[in-house]
């Protein structure tokens, strides 16, 4: 803004992130819609499975992650739709900043949104399904953050692709769901351990898997994203 020289990668990313968060904050449309969508998903699980409280309690972690996953496909598709709407992406591409900064900004924005969503959903889940958080808030937040990051990195790349294709609403889940199976598996498993206690000390291996997944896909997304949005 002040000088025409290319600004650094991380500064550019944070400027873009600030812009996205500001847009989100001004309308709050996306977060509102997502919260209601995932709340009703959580409710629907209990209707679909019947009032078996034991079952709900045991599987609460899995349901929470499914609700977040379904919401994430909506939210990530939206994060690029706003850029295509008024050809904003072309503007971003023309800016003297690294294209990879766009990936970082979008992925961080999606992560933050999902973490916020999860933060709102967890108390509801605790109340609805009657679970106890045995391991405490620290591991709970760590699981939430790692899991949301793992959904957001590949999701951002695929959302950028799908939002510009035909049938984008179908395409994003079609591409994303098989891909994030390891992340979903690990975060649901870790969440269940957090909720029910971890007598056999398995939590760290699931965190390791999530960490590795994050490392690989944040790296791949960072490297490949400029090719995705090039013209």
């Amino acid at each position: 803004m002040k000088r025409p020289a290319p600004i650094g990668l991380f500064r550019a990313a944070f400027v873009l992130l600030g812009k996205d968060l500001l847009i989100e904050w001004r309308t709050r449309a996306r977060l509102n819609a997502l919260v209601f969508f995932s709340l009703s998903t959580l409710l629907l699980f209990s209707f679909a499975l019947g009032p078996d409280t034991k079952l709900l309690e045991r599987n609460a972690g899995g349901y929470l992650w499914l609700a977040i996953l379904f919401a994430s496909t909506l939210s990530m598709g939206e994060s690029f739709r706003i850029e295509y709407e008024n050809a904003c992406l072309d503007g971003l591409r023309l800016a003297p900043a690294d294209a990879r900064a766009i990936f970082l900004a979008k992925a961080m924005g999606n992560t933050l949104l999902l973490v916020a969503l999860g933060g709102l959903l967890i108390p509801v889940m605790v109340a609805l399904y009657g679970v106890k958080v045995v391991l405490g808030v620290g591991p709970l937040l760590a699981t939430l953050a790692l899991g949301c990051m793992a959904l957001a990195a590949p999701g951002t790349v695929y959302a950028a692709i799908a939002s510009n294709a035909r049938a984008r609403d179908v395409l994003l889940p079609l591409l994303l769901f098989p891909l994030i199976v390891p992340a979903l598996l690990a975060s649901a498993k870790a969440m269940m351990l957090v909720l029910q206690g971890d007598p056999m000390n398995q939590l760290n291996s699931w965190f390791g898997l999530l960490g590795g997944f994050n490392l690989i896909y944040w790296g791949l997304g960072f490297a490949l994203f400029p090719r995705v949005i090039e013209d």
Partner: protein
Amino acid sequence: MGKFLRMALPPIALGLLVTGHYIGLAVAPPDREMGDVQRIMYAHVPAVWIALMALTINFICSVVYLFKPSWKTDSLAEASAEVGLLFGTVGVLLGAIWGRPTWGVYWTWDPRLTTAAILLVSYMGYMALRRFVEDPEKRAVWSAVVGIIAAVDLPIIWYSVKWWRSLHQVQSSPKTVDPEMVLPLRISAFAFLAFMILFILHRYRIALHERQAEVALPDALPTDGPQANRTPGVV
């Protein structure tokens, strides 16, 4: 070379297939434990091997395309993905059928089966992406990206499912293959390999032809072109 392959390969492939499957069905001894049902192996195992080989070709083409764009690489990627999907589907179906008499169920959540199923869904998504993007250049780049990401995911899925399962039970079915079963297995594998080359070759020609037709008339297609992908706000 291409002409020779196209003329000579069909009889070779068919001959190998008939020989391999004949030996497998009629000559090879039945398995000690699984009886005649084990004969499914001569179709199931090569199908899975060849599917993995075709998808490896797809991965290599995807990487190469990003470094050195060419319609030939893109067409080969499309061809290998579709053929890999064909062999993979056959392999998974046969595995499920084989599972019914041996395990008593069509499906178990063992790492191999689960990974194979996810693999199929991933590459169906890949093929859907190719179908849903009209702009040939974007389609090529995007499908290369998706091809790389999907291929990288496979080992992660494998290990994660393995860990996930190991908390419940340990899948143990070490299958020692009798020497008399090796011969039909090997012949069948080469037959499937020949079919893969044949299929990919023909599919590649179709894809390349489509690419050339698309590139030859970039703006002639009125509204079905890349413009239609944009949202109405964009002029």
